[in-house]
């Protein structure tokens, strides 16, 4: 009887060790299959539930009357393209903490620092995270509220915009000033975005893209985007009017 009990006692730890070894081997197989062989074996120990839903409703229909003639495409690297080379981050933070009065540009830098920090990018120290953002700026004419959109406007408004000398075949036309009509931050897509992604909430993304949009507008203005847009737009309109029987088209400034 005693010898039987001893045998049973010996068998139990051996079985336990065997079971543990099998479990470890199974876990190792699962991990290795994913990491080395790129095969996914269902993991019985880990349960992941992912959900993503969205519903869209039509909120507004808007009539627009624009002529876009030029598009600037920017590729920027967040945060490095948005920050000023000369910013002393530590000094800026300490001044903010001390309650010093900061100018709008310093506030913007502080805001970028905060967003970058939330996204795991520490500008006060070494950091290798980034996001590549593509933005488009379109420029041209916006005819909203002009006689070109509503011919029913007052005769004075019409006279101000167009003067015709049919006998001489001359038309004088006053176009609205060329403007930046659109600033579009292109939506990132995992199928085409090859860089590592950043952890950033939609709210932070909103702040970041608004800073970026403002910067790009300034940058586009510096590069005279509206003048280029106006030149191209005028060329098209001149061609249309010459096709309509006019010999000469004069643009009223």
């Amino acid at each position: 009887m005693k010898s039987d009990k001893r045998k049973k006692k010996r068998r139990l730890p051996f079985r336990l060790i065997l079971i543990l070894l099998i479990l470890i081997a199974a876990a190792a197989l699962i991990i290795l299959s994913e990491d080395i062989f790129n095969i996914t074996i269902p993991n019985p120990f880990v349960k992941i539930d992912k959900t993503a839903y969205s519903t869209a409703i039509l909120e507004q229909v808007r009539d627009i009357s624009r002529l876009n003639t030029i598009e600037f495409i920017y590729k920027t690297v967040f945060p490095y393209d948005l920050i000023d080379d000369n910013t002393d981050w530590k000094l800026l933070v300490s001044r903010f903490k001390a309650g010093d009065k900061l100018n709008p540009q310093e506030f913007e830098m502080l805001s970028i620092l905060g967003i970058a920090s939330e996204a795991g990018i520490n500008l006060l120290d070494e950091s290798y995270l980034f996001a590549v953002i593509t933005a488009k700026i379109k420029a041209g004419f916006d005819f909203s509220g002009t006689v070109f959109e509503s011919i029913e406007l007052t005769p004075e408004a019409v006279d101000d915009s167009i003067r015709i000398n049919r006998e001489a075949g001359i038309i004088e036309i006053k176009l609205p000033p060329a403007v930046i009509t659109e600033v579009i931050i292109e939506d990132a897509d995992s199928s085409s975005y090859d860089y590592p992604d950043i952890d950033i909430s939609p709210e932070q993304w909103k702040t970041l893209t608004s800073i970026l949009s403002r910067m790009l507008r300034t940058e586009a203005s510096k590069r005279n985007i509206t003048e280029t847009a106006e030149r191209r737009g005028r060329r098209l309109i001149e061609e249309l009017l010459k096709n309509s029987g006019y010999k000469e088209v004069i643009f009223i400034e």
Partner: protein
Amino acid sequence: MLLAACSRPEHRTAESLELSIRNILEMPTCEQIYRDIVYIGEEQKVLFIKTMDMRLLFSIDIRVQAGIRQTDRIRISLQETPEDEKLRAIVTMPKAEVLYADADETTIEQYFIKEWGGEIARLDYYDEINRKKEEIIAAAESSGLLERADSNAEKLIRNFLLLANVEVTEFRKAADEI
């Protein structure tokens, strides 16, 4: 040497942003704005113990804009009319099409975010927005976006030529001529 190779990139100014310029001639004439309410959730349990819980709810507007893409393809054919009458013309122009569908980041309203045991990345929610975009474009087209864009484009051209003393008698679609 390895450290030197991995040194932090130099800060750049706005002037160094990579840029390309494209000439376009497009006439956007109608826009539909859709409000997209997005929910993302991810929960992970290891041996029935919760190790990760992430939830995000926000809304964003998706703008679908339509109009004439190649306005340089607009052709005006003058018709013969007596001298004292207004000039008359037939205008041929391309059909309206969707110019773009894009999420408008300025309209983001974040209701809540929970990041426990992990963090939600930008592509997690943009993939959901992009997935929905195809449906939104289809809905916009079936609700008459292109027809309205066409009619607005015709109105703009008609007004423009009327001011130049040219009456448009007919609009033809450029594709119809092929």
